[in-house]
């Protein structure tokens, strides 16, 4: 119990004096997850909207698959990305394994289905409301896509935040493809796993605090956005 209290105190000290090791890890975490979420947004929003707007054979199957992929186990994504990026894998020549880029790729595959599936739902609901009006205005489905993404911007931001929450909290994928190398690929979640097993609780706890704060921050942002949207479109 005393150990725990001491560890807690040390953890808070680390945060208070913005410890350099701590800052480095937090910075890299944000870098990796923000890059992955950024790419997933660029790719996932149009993908989800296209599935909602265009009718093609197998559309329902794609929808079901996409929804299922929202729950992809991170370790499995990590494993597949590892196999693709390892020396003997198809993308081995790129030499990306155990780099932050590899971690971004793995998290991209983890987050894109979340962003795309939520975007599909949002855009489909909007389309039900807008379709007659937009068709009457002479909007082709191609033109409707950016229109609906823009009009759904508040709900879609929530989708992106959900993706960010997922990316920043997962440990399995980045551990496997990043390798948890000090000063190179070590991020918050992998550090917590490692330091806990080493018994270095202050650093693990400090990172844990920051992760939770981040999670609260993300949810607060999502809440505020919803409120703003309600006010503006009531």
């Amino acid at each position, binding site marked *: 119990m005393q150990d725990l209290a001491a560890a807690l105190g040390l953890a808070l000290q680390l945060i208070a004096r913005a410890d350099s090791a701590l800052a480095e890890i937090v910075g890299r975490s944000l870098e990796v997850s923000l890059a992955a979420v950024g790419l997933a947004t660029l790719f996932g929003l149009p993908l989800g909207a296209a599935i909602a707007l265009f009718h093609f054979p197998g559309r329902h199957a794609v929808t079901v698959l996409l929804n299922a992929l929202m729950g992809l186990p991170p370790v499995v994504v990590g494993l597949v990305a590892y196999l693709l990026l390892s020396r003997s894998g198809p993308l081995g020549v790129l030499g990306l394994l155990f780099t932050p880029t590899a971690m971004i790729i793995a998290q991209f595959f983890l987050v894109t289905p979340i962003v795309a599936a939520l975007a599909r739902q949002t855009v489909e609901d909007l389309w039900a*409301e*807008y379709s*007659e*009006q937009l*068709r*009457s*205005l*002479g*909007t*082709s489905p191609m*033109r409707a896509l950016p*229109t609906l993404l*823009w*009009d759904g*911007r508040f709900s879609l931001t929530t989708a992106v935040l959900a993706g960010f929450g997922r990316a920043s909290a997962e440990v399995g994928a980045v551990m496997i493809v990043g390798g948890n190398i000090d000063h190179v690929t070590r991020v918050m979640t992998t550090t917590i796993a490692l330091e806990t097993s080493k018994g270095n609780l202050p650093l693990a706890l400090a990172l844990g605090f920051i992760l939770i704060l981040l999670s609260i921050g993300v949810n607060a942002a999502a809440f505020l956005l919803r409120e703003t949207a309600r006010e*503006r*479109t*009531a």
Partner: protein
Amino acid sequence: MSAASILPLRLEEVAYEAGGRTLIEPVSLDIAHGPRSLLLGPNGAGKSLLLRLCHGLIRPSRGRVVWQGAAPGGNGVPLLHRQAMVFQRPVMLRRSALANVEYALKLRGLGRKDRRERATAMLARTGLGALARMPARRLSGGEQQRLALARAWAVEPEILFLDEPTANLDPAAVKLVEEIIGAIHAAGTKIVMTTHDLAQARRLADEILFLHRGRVVERRDAASFFAGPRTEAARAFVEGRLHW
């Protein structure tokens, strides 16, 4: 905008069925430039369906909708760009009133500066100038319907379809909307509008198409229609007797 008119609009034996029921009985008619045509009839008579068939939002189960100078069945975006429709419940994009009008103009290929100028002018003409920057969805029902009219008018359509545009509005808002419809007509746009409101039909109509149970049972100039409807269904409707 090219010079050749898309009017008259011709319906050739157009029928519409859904769920095994015939909702619009086969109808052939021409809609030419000029008089304000009002589709009058009780709820469920098929007025809105007929309007959507004309506008191309739904496809006829049988028959053809033919626009002047267009290939039969051709109902693509270029034709839509010469028409506009105002719905009973206007759908406003989640952006400012001004941006809603600009959006329609952008689809017509107008440049940024022209869009801004024309949209601003349209809002002024419909009495919404002061509300240009307001989020469109925060406008009142009447203001939204006037914005829908501004958006439709801005593209200078040859023909404007209106589906019960005042059904949800209070009398003051109805008056404003009717004035704008009159101004749009005066500026040279063909008006085709549905209503179940007799008083409104008397105020606005040059000619009446009376619908009953999916059938156009009478089509005459408004004065003679109201002086003496020929069919029993129309007589019952005009006299306020329910007739099903």
